[in-house]
């Protein structure tokens, strides 16, 4: 007898590790990374997207519990039952996944020492998305623990499991049902230590852009804060224009649901009608409620009556509450409340005099002014004015991203400049990439 099949009707599922193992050699970041990779095993081949959230409303709540934990499936100490998960559905526990905290959870350890958390998590998340047990010896959905399954970054599901999950959700675009997937790019994903430890930081990638010499892909005011996007990264400034971190955060680690392969965005703005955040890239756009993508996206930009090819910039002008889209020398005026383009557009040349005819992006700011960005410069237009304020353009790096004149010329000067700013002395020829010797620490928060 096979239980009735259940599956998720939505394709974007949130997850969260609510409780961590208490006496484990695995650090919290390692546990989170293993959960990420175990979910990725399934999302790599199906149109499901998983994103980690901090709140209590995650679809998949992950807990490490002991003995009876009030769900009808009590754990039984070391050995025996090691984990379980609830099938999809409308019940509030649907998708929830529990691991027995009495097991000796391991990662990259031999079979003889404990239970491999990644292997068990892949199995349990199979249940969480609707798969039942199967007797096939090769299947990860066999009910018995069969030891570690190898490197989480290279794990490939057995064919039986692929077929069964495809029957539920279909095949992910770009996945061939007959081809063995190639090893994916790993440097986009959480860091997994060689040996279990309690690392709390993720090493910076080599392709991280420098805020002091970047021309930004997109700039937006979101919930009163400024966001500067460049490539796969963004910087965030508080309402009083303090940079949250000198190091950028990865876009997809904060904006949950954007495709991992998205290498940049074209334009971003917050809708005044419902305060949702709209991301544009090429012919497509995504709508976010807070930092989670809404169901049904991406959608074509033709929804806005914009032509194919995408846009360069988008912003909502405080003066008339209309949204302006820019592409090359053209611009459009859109009514977000009526959800339609105003007649007579596109028009040529921007409405505002003294700003470039081609923009990188624009935003309104809480001082009532509008800011237009192009290259390394920005222009300020005061509320209701139709001309850039005198004295502009100014340097975006200097005025918004805490760079000195020296730094704005190039990142190679940054150590010297920041050392000078913080009062630390740099010896000639010394290259201090970590800046820790100057007593200057950098923190980066991505969630």
């Amino acid at each position, binding site marked *: 007898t096979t239980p009735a099949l259940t599956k998720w009707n939505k394709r974007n599922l949130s997850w969260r590790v609510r409780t961590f193992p208490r006496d484990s050699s695995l650090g919290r970041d390692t546990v989170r990374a293993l959960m990420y990779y175990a979910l990725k095993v399934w999302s790599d081949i199906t149109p499901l997207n998983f994103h980690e959230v901090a709140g209590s409303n995650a679809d998949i709540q992950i807990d490490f519990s002991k003995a009876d934990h009030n769900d009808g499936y009590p754990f039984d100490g070391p050995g025996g039952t090691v984990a379980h998960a609830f099938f999809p559905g409308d019940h509030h526990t649907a998708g929830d996944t529990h691991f027995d905290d009495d097991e000796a959870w391991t990662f990259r350890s031999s079979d003889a020492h404990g239970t491999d958390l990644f292997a068990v998590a892949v199995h349990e998340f199979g249940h969480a998305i609707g798969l039942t047990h199967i007797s096939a010896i090769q299947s990860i959905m066999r009910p018995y*623990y069969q030891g570690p399954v190898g490197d989480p970054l290279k794990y490939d599901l057995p064919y039986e499991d692929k077929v069964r999950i495809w029957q539920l959700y279909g095949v992910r675009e770009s996945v061939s049902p007959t081809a063995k997937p190639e090893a994916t790019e790993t440097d986009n994903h959480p860091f997994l230590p060689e040996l279990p430890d309690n690392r709390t930081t993720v090493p910076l990638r080599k392709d991280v852009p420098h805020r002091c010499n970047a021309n930004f892909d997109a700039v937006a005011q979101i919930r009163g804060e400024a966001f500067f996007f460049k490539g796969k990264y963004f910087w965030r400034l508080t309402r009083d224009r303090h940079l949250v971190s000198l190091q950028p955060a990865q876009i997809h680690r904060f904006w949950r649901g954007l495709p991992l392969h998205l290498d940049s965005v074209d334009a971003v703005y917050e809708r005044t009608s419902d305060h949702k955040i709209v991301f544009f890239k090429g012919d497509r756009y995504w709508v976010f409620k807070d930092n989670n993508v809404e169901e049904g996206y991406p959608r074509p930009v033709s929804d806005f009556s914009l032509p194919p090819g995408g846009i360069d910039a988008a912003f909502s002008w405080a003066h008339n509450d209309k949204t302006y889209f820019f592409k090359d020398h053209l611009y459009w005026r859109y009514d977000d409340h009526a959800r339609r383009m105003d007649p007579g557009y596109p028009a040529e040349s921007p409405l505002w005099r003294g700003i470039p005819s081609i923009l990188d992006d624009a935003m309104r700011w809480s001082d009532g002014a509008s800011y237009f960005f192009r290259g390394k410069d920005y222009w300020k237009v005061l509320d209701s004015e139709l001309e850039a304020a005198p004295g502009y353009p100014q340097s975006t790096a200097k005025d918004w991203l805490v760079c000195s004149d020296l730094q704005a010329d190039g990142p190679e000067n940054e150590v010297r400049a920041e050392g000078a700013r913080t009062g630390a002395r740099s010896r000639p020829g010394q290259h201090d990439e970590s800046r820790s010797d100057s007593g200057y620490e950098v923190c980066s928060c991505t969630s």
Partner: protein
Amino acid sequence: APAPRTEDLSLGVEWLSRFGYLPPPDPVTGQLQTQEELAKAIAAMQRFGGLEATGVLDEATLKLMKTPRCSLPDLAVPGARRKR
């Protein structure tokens, strides 16, 4: 084959009920099962676990029952089936 020890039989019946091979305990008869039902359940468990389906609670079957595993049942609990 030698008859299984009482504690093994008890463990086996509890295990088979928990993972969906035997119906849940009857309120009148408790855990009592007929020998035939028990043998069928053991055979089903052996087939699912990749063992030879003998219906006998032998060493290999008991070893598999003691293997760490997922808490969810392998089969839908028979007593939980709905009427048409």
